[in-house]
């Protein structure tokens, strides 16, 4: 159905805070729906669900044990406007980590339960490759409502029962035929997803070392990746005020796996690069058939200071492995 910008805005504002990507690409709560850029914002939407700095508890130094105050999950109903399918799909992967019993993250769950995901179809950029993973820029499977911008508003489709219920509450515009889903972009060199088992079987391949020489382990790719969720737990304190925090961390840092005694299983740069590739393209798909730890948003390609294309690298590895296998055969 058709829905005007004003109607949508009113309905969303009535529900609660509306989170949108700001001009700087960060998610902020606003009162009026902004004009979105053509492509995904710089920060993935995971920031709202698993923020880089999340309080677990706080207390005063020297206070009794009863005074440890656990942070309260934010249960304010609201909505996120402008979610792109790649980011929304990534949330399905994060759900697997944070909503899996017995260790459910109440903060993540509260946000997931209370924020309505309003997707907006995007215009893929040159580094996007969501098509590789079988969906496109207007995919509605992981959002509650998917909007396709039109001259004077949007064409809305529901992607979930929650989305359907929401659309039922807004003043319905004219019913319009829904266009067929657009295919997502794929790199021209793409011929198929790497086989997770073949990748894992080549854990000790010399290729990793070679790839390691052109990576500086800056970790920008992980920080902006919509599916990366690694964190650390630490305290910060100032003049007797102490916060226990869950802080974003990333597997590219040499400190990530270094133990207090000094032993570090992933000491060299290449092993950390391998960890990232393996986690996304081998470990996750092996343990969750049908899922891949990447949604093709292309942020890592855009932001890499060394202009690397991780996916192209994986592809190159697989090509070489296959060639070697053929030669042996």
């Amino acid at each position, binding site marked *: 159905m058709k829905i005007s910008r004003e109607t949508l805005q009113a309905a969303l504002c009535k529900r609660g805070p509306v989170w949108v990507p700001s001009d700087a690409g960060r998610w902020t709560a606003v009162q009026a729906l902004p004009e979105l850029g053509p492509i995904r914002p710089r920060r993935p939407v995971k920031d709202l669900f698993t923020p880089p700095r999340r309080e677990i508890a706080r207390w005063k130094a020297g206070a009794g044990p009863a005074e440890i105050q656990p942070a309260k999950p934010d249960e304010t109903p609201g909505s996120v406007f402008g979610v792109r399918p790649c980011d929304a799909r990534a949330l399905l992967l994060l759900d697997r980590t944070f909503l899996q019993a017995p260790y459910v993250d109440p903060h993540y769950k509260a946000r997931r339960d209370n924020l309505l995901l309003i997707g907006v179809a995007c215009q893929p950029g040159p580094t996007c490759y969501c098509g590789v993973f079988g969906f496109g820029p207007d995919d509605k499977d992981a959002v509650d409502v998917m909007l396709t911008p039109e001259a004077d508003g949007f064409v809305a489709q529901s992607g979930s029962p929650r989305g359907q219920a929401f659309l039922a509450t807004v003043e319905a515009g004219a019913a319009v035929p829904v266009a067929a889903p657009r295919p997502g972009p794929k*790199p021209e060199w793409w011929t198929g997803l790497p086989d997770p088992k073949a990748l894992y079987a080549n854990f000790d391949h010399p290729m990793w070392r070679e790839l390691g020489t052109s990576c500086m382990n*800056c970790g*920008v790719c992980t*920080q902006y990746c919509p599916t990366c969720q690694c964190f650390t737990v630490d305290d910060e304190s100032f003049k007797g005020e102490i916060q226990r925090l869950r802080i974003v961390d990333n597997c590219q840092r040499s400190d990530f796996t270094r133990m207090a005694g000094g032993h570090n299983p992933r000491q060299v740069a290449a092993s950390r690069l391998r960890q990232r590739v393996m986690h996304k393209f081998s470990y996750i798909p092996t343990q969750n058939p049908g899922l891949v730890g990447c949604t093709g948003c292309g942020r890592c390609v855009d932001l890499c*200071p060394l202009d*690397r294309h991780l996916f192209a690298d994986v592809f190159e590895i697989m090509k070489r492995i296959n060639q070697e296998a053929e030669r042996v055969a």
Partner: protein
Amino acid sequence: MNQALREAVKHLFAEGKVKSVLGYREHPLSKAVVATLITRPEDADTLIFDDRCVQNLARGLSRDLPLPVGIVVKGCDGRAVSMRITEGDFAREQIVAIAVACPGVKADGKNLDERCQRCEMHVSPLADVTVGDVSALPKPEKTRAETIAKIKAMTPAERFEFWQKAFEPCTHCYACREVCPLCSCTVCVTDQNSPRWIEQTAKPSSNLMWHMIRAFHHAGRCVDCGECQRACPEGVPMHLLDLCLAEDVEELFDFKTGIKQGGKWPFLMFDPQDPDSWLGGPHRG
């Protein structure tokens, strides 16, 4: 250019002067220019140099590479390699500098980078081999003084405000540190936790702390390659602060980083004539 570069590299291999070469190649799939390490002369044919070669490869140098290692250097990269040799990271004979005549690079693919507009060093001062036409290189369009003039003109309160705003988007990802050819500490101050000098999460105090320490550590060492700023996913203009301090170091110690081989970093030496006036009163405004 590419042909000359490849010939030069093959020549170095043939003469046994290098065991490996760090250079640029075009990724066969993504078509982006990426760093590459070649260890066989025949791979020299993958090497390229053009205005897409924005990275500073000096960061990739390591004693674990097959030495001596050749490295394709632009002007700024060469200064960085030179500084690393000065600091004792490498012996001079472990490095073969393949200097390319660099008219400047275009990170966005269209316009000359800001850092290149004020470049006075289009050819590396450290050069074992020089490739390309060094006679036809552009003159700087801008000066460092012009770049930092706006900061100079501010009052202290305005400056503080300016940097607070500039550092605000910092997420402490430390990409600026990872790409910096001279960030060579074994354990970075950000990773020390006993005591913890810089808190891990982003907030006004830790942002300022990190960028001040970063700038201070680079005083007299920064080679103005501007990689920190280019790598920053949030576009924090941290390199501006490096430039401010570079001006001071030149004024105080008459030291220009990485231009001259040998010598010492100004903090590792002193002159009994160093004036006491350095330590008193406001020095500007």
